[in-house]
């Protein structure tokens, strides 16, 4: 709403910036959510599609789309990152054997990570999506 020279009118945000002669400062938030392995679908692909189905159901009035490892709701992006690959942990040499051993670390430590990214303008939607994710995955 622009009030100027005894008049009031409605303008688009980008037009208002231009008229005021200032540059907007864009604030973007990216929240990282680690999904415990027991709550995650076994593959990143499944997590993405599960998330897409959930968000489509929750936001029937918003534009929800799915891509490879990501789901977007309006301007809010949720990226699904696969678990980190197993880390090779060297084992101490056994006294009964001279050969060296290696093994992978426990798989239970690894989790699929969601990156929920949105601008300050989309904070309300971003926060709702965060809440739905927390409820869906019992976090």
């Amino acid at each position, binding site marked *: 709403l622009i009030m100027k020279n005894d008049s009031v009118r409605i303008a688009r945000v980008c037009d208002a910036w231009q008229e005021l002669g200032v540059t*907007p*400062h864009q604030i973007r938030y990216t929240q990282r959510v680690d999904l415990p392995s027991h709550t995650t679908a076994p593959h990143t692909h499944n997590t993405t599609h599960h998330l897409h189905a959930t968000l489509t159901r929750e936001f029937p009035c918003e534009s929800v789309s799915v891509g490879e490892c990501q789901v977007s709701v309006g301007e809010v992006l949720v990226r699904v990152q696969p678990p980190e690959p197993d880390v090779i942990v060297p084992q101490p040499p056994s006294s009964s054997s001279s050969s060296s051993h290696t093994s992978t670390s426990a798989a239970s430590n690894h989790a699929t990570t969601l990156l929920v990214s949105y601008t300050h303008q989309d904070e309300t939607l971003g926060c709702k999506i965060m809440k739905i994710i927390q409820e869906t995955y019992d976090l």
Partner: protein
Amino acid sequence: SKPGPSSVSVYPSRYPYGTLSVEDLMQGLSQAGMVDARLEEDAGGCIITVESEDAMLQIRDNSTHIITSRLETREKIRDLLLKCLSHI
């Protein structure tokens, strides 16, 4: 309670503009208890890391990107940022 299906078209109450004063932000972070905030310059601007809060801020002339895993931290830093920026 679980949010019901609806269109979410709520506009922010404040629209920030201009360049962020990194000095003011560093002071604000310290006053908010994030005393381990570390400032580093990079090619396009600067980066602030707050290890104790698992947070990182990437600052450019007309944008700031807050990356964190903690909801409370995001809100604390957001409020500090909005205090340091002009807004309509």
